[in-house]
């Protein structure tokens, strides 16, 4: 809940910074701007923003909500894809021998240092190149007009988080591998695939889940760049065009709420799971 307070506090920051630039601390103005923001937002249906591009007032529902929905779709599709691929690759590499595993890990570790910008540009240029060579347009590289593109941005957004999650998974799985029960299962003659998939997977997934919050944070930043480079009609682009404390607050809450729900439900689920185990 303190996170909520933190977000509200941050939305008024530019007033403070602007004051600091002129060498004065504008605390009272900061507080009053916070007050104004909260007052402005309260009846959510009536909340509206002056759109700088069209010069008209825009209401939160349904206009802005549409932007938010599109961004959230892309974000969570990419996260799901990244998580699925990362887990699949982890299970596969766990089946490899120790030596090959180290090599794969090292390779992916250096792949991780590629900036997301490079990946997005490479994807765009690659599609243009294929189009020029074969006349097949695999996907649109930018949004023009009202249509939406899905799979290319999702792919671009998913690659780096996938590598991050993969590293995380590998660390937890390898930690898990040293536990006693794995040795026991092995001595009982279970195959490696079975142990990794049934036993280790269940235990490791919990700790991966709790640490994946940071990956989503990283993805938020990437999503912003992605919307900019693909010209996607998402909330980030909207926020850039209409920068004001109110929009900032609404946009951040729109990310905060689903993430908060996801992690609360996850926590509740896993904790219940644990307790059930302990009783049984």
């Amino acid at each position: 809940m303190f996170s909520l307070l933190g977000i509200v506090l941050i939305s008024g920051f530019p007033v403070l910074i602007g004051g600091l630039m002129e060498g004065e601390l504008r605390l009272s103005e900061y507080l009053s701007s916070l007050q104004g923001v909260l007052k402005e937002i309260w009846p959510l249906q009536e909340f509206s923003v002056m759109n700088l591009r069209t010069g008209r007032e825009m209401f939160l529902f349904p206009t802005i909500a549409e932007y938010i929905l599109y961004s959230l779709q892309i974000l969570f599709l990419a996260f799901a894809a990244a998580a699925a691929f990362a887990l699949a690759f982890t299970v596969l590499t766990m089946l490899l021998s120790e030596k090959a595993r180290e090599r794969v890990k090292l390779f992916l570790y250096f792949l991780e240092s590629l900036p997301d910008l490079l990946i997005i540009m490479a994807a765009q240029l690659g599609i243009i190149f294929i189009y020029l060579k074969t006349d097949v347009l695999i996907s649109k590289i930018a949004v023009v007009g009202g249509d939406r593109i899905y799979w290319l941005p999702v792919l671009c957004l998913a690659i780096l988080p996938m590598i991050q999650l993969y590293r995380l998974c590998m660390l937890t799985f390898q930690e898990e591998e040293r536990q006693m029960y794995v040795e026991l299962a092995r001595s009982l003659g279970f195959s490696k695939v079975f142990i990794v998939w049934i036993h280790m997977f269940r235990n490791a997934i919990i700790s991966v889940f709790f640490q994946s919050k940071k990956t989503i944070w990283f993805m938020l930043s990437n999503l912003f760049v992605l919307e900019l480079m693909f010209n996607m009609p998402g909330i980030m682009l909207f926020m850039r065009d209409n920068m004001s404390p109110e929009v900032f607050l609404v946009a951040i809450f729109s990310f905060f709420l689903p993430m908060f729900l996801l992690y609360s439900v996850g926590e509740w689920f896993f904790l219940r799971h644990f307790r059930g185990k302990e009783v049984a």
Partner: protein
Amino acid sequence: MWKQPYFAIGFSLMALLLFGSFAFEWIFGNVPKQIFFIEENGRAVEGPPISPKWEFPLGTDQYGYDLFGKIMLGGKYTIIAALAVAAIRMLIAVPFGYLLGTYLQKHRAWIGGLADSLHYIPLTLFAAYVLYPVLWMPPEGFANGVWERIAIQVVLMSLLTMPVVAVLVGNEAALLYRKEYVLASRVLGAGRFRIIRKHLYPQMREKLAVLYGQQVMETFIVMAHLSLLNLFLGGTKVSYDPLFGDPPMSISYEWAGLFGSTFRYLQGAPWLPLYPVFFIALAILSVSFMMEGYLRSKNPQVKKRKGIASPSENIVEWNKEQLREKMIRLKNPHDL
């Protein structure tokens, strides 16, 4: 540390980029070569932007400036700024984190929650939001000088995620604080400061080094992202001329700015945005090489573990074989 090949490669790459940048300015001056067209047999065949050629390894920009020269000149700003941002962030966050982990343990919960709110805000957007009043040139010109602006930007960028790092360090310190040896030294009468100095800091030195490397990498990326919004290191020169307005320009030739101001040319002249980003990637790669090398030099467990693991596995295999033999014998007692 220096004998680790990974660290050596990363360090020499970084040093090459940094000192190459200073040497380039010292030798060729601080204005890159400018060329207006390329002649072949007396005819102009290509005007700016000129694509990469033997003479101009990275091509030229839309005004005919040599891109290689620009990148070499700009490297020092980008690299030093990223290192400085991460260093200042660590310098503030680490003492604060230790305070949090030792003196302020009761308050850790709510401070952590407050810092956690940063996890829901896209870092780039937050940085842009905070830095916009500093970096965007108002119509009447900047109120303060370039170096002042760079200093303000570096400090602000380091403060942005400082709370997150501080809480991270604090959690780690609090974990270590509960270890037996800390308890033992407390029983022997050590103060909290002595515990930090003698136990917590040496225990966490490697983790802090890795954290620093991660911060440097993150800073590079945030700077590149900011440049997409036309917020460049040291301020953005905006032309308010309604008729012949130049596009927003970076004041120095730093890499992020080179990328951001040329991103629109991605399809026509892909080398213009690609090479600066490529150099940023190189810098990030060199940092990650250094981190990997540093870790390997500090705990060469990879080799050791292999050495222990492989014989023990042999023993298991051998036992299995033996077992199987015995079982077979048990199964067919007539053979004996």
